[in-house]
């Protein structure tokens, strides 16, 4: 697995440049990361890159993603996301969003329905049902984190949580806390920012993917999203995978997405 190309994007109205990874040939496919992010190039992204030009812009709060503490409300976040997708040359492309990245992809698609082709949401956040609440992943003991995010906790720990060799452990830990804070800034306390009322504006054909063992966002939320979205929807469950399906089942997830996108 070779490293992706890395470049810096200058966003309109933004001070610092934003990091973007790109790899592969073919049509451009934008990926917005989820909780815990993509701390390094992963087998899942690699599987994508064999068939598409994968473009992964860093989200605010994630390494290279710029300052998130200037984003105060949902409008700030959505405008930033649209600026980011535009700067990464992803307008009119297919978008894939994970967790909070799924929230942003869905919001951007609802605010600006003409800006994308097809939409893929992998266990997105943004809806909330009191009768079947999303787990409070900001109230986990450290020891509970791996099993909450993954059906293969040791693997998740190794790929996402453990610092790579030669990394400053304190700075690594800080980067993780910062990324969780960014997600909290967007979604605390329940994640409901009114997306349910806006889903109807998503006209793009949409794939909703869920790990069957997702311990954070109940799989039934796929149906809630599908019912609200105006475009044609398809729901696919990944057997045996947890919330971070890209870690638990990288090949199967990439296959399901590529199958949908054709």
């Amino acid at each position, binding site marked *: 697995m070779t490293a992706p190309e890395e470049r810096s994007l200058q966003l309109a109205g933004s001070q610092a440049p934003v990091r973007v990874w790109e790899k592969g040939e073919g049509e451009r496919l934008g990926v917005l990361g989820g909780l815990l992010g993509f701390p390094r190039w992963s087998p899942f992204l690699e599987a994508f890159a064999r068939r598409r030009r994968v473009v992964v812009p860093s989200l605010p709060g994630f390494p290279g993603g710029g300052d998130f503490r200037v984003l105060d409300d949902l409008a700030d976040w959505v405008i930033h996301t649209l600026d980011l997708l535009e700067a990464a040359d992803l307008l009119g492309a297919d978008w894939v969003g994970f967790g909070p990245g799924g929230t942003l992809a869905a919001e951007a698609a609802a605010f600006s329905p003409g800006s994308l082709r097809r939409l893929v949401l992998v266990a997105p956040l943004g809806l909330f049902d009191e009768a079947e609440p999303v787990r409070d992943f900001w*109230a986990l003991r450290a020891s509970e984190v791996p099993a909450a995010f993954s059906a293969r906790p040791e693997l998740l720990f190794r790929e996402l949580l453990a610092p790579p060799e030669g990394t400053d452990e*304190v700075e690594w830990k800080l980067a993780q806390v910062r990324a969780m*804070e960014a997600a909290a800034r967007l979604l605390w*306390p329940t994640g409901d920012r009114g997306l349910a009322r806006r889903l109807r504006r998503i006209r793009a054909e949409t794939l909703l993917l869920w790990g069957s063992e997702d311990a954070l966002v109940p799989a039934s939320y796929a149906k809630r999203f599908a019912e609200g979205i105006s475009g044609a929807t398809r729901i696919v469950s990944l057997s045996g995978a947890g919330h971070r399906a890209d870690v638990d089942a990288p090949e199967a997830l990439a296959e399901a997405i590529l199958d949908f996108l054709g």
Partner: protein
Amino acid sequence: MKLLWFHLMPYPDLPEDFKEQHPSVWVDIDSRLFDPARAHQAYNDFMDELEFAAEMEFDAVCVNEHHSNAYGLMPSPNVIAGALARRTRDAALCVMGNSLALYNPPLRVAEEFAMLDCISGGRLIAGFPVGTPMDTCYAYGTNPSQLRERYREAHDLILRAWQEPDCFTWNGRYNKLRYVNPWPRPLQRPHPPIWIPGGGSVETWQWCAELDYVYAYLSYFGYKAGEATLRGFWDEMARLGKDRNPFRAGFLQFVGVAESRQEALDLYREPAEYFYNRCLHVDARYAAPPGYTTEATLRSKVVSQVLAAATRSSDREAFGPPGIEEIVSKGYVVIGSPDEVAEQLREVALRLNVGQLMLLLQFGNMGKDLAFYNTELFAKRVAPQLRDLFEAEWENRWWPQPLAREARAVPREVRA
């Protein structure tokens, strides 16, 4: 030095197996453990105790704010302070305090504190805490990434609202108010003394220094654990060119006084063990919402007090609950005869260089009789040995300036 009598108002009837049967004393504590009729008695006992402390000539009585918390039954300390304003004559009222970011708009704090200051004739100490993660982010749902920004903005708004004579407009980041014009205004000018209860963060120390506020370290773990924090505070003051005026600093200490050390051990064993085992049983999951602790503080690896408490709570599982001997040997609670306690507290005050000493003389499930006994012994036989400390060398610029006693209203007697 100043001696302040502090009440947390802990619910007195948590079951013996509380730790085993319940995950946390805070946030998601089982409401079925709460008996309002019991609370009726408890609140009235607690208020009797505060009034008795004022009668015993403590310099101040202190109340504070917690939410969804069985050891702190004051979601609104202002309610208690309002009653105390009428039922006490001379003691300062230290409201320690209102968590500014939780009030919408925060002008509410400017108004209620101004009311308290007017009613009490200028006896208010205005405490401005950020608030713990449990209170602010979990029980009140405040976004941890915005908490401190909201806190700072609320502070600026309140200070201006207290001082600006004209109605003004506030177009802040989080508060948009076309008309800001609180009635009443505080009696103390330019405003009541402001005290900042905080953990061990360098930013808080710098802020207190910059604005000339009292920094109060409200630890439950006594003078031994608090020494490092206070040393950090004074080092930072020195670095910033501030003097070592001990009245810049407040510190909280649990104390149990009796005729002898043995008697004190016997008397305070149960309430101390109740507090440290049941009341401090905080689930670690509520201790560290991302963004609550600033990056600078995280980086300097200063662990906040609540995090320490929560970690202690979970670490404890392996070691068993602390008994009174450990609670005393670690300095969480200072106990002994009046002379022994006075000697220890003098040393604590000098070593930590703290001029505003806050005392928890009621703690855990301590009943009213024992709380009165402890308070009276302290007032009559300990306090006289401490009062002279620092008074000759330093000016306490952070103490309320009330109206002259004869100018203050006297509430009429009420016939029941």
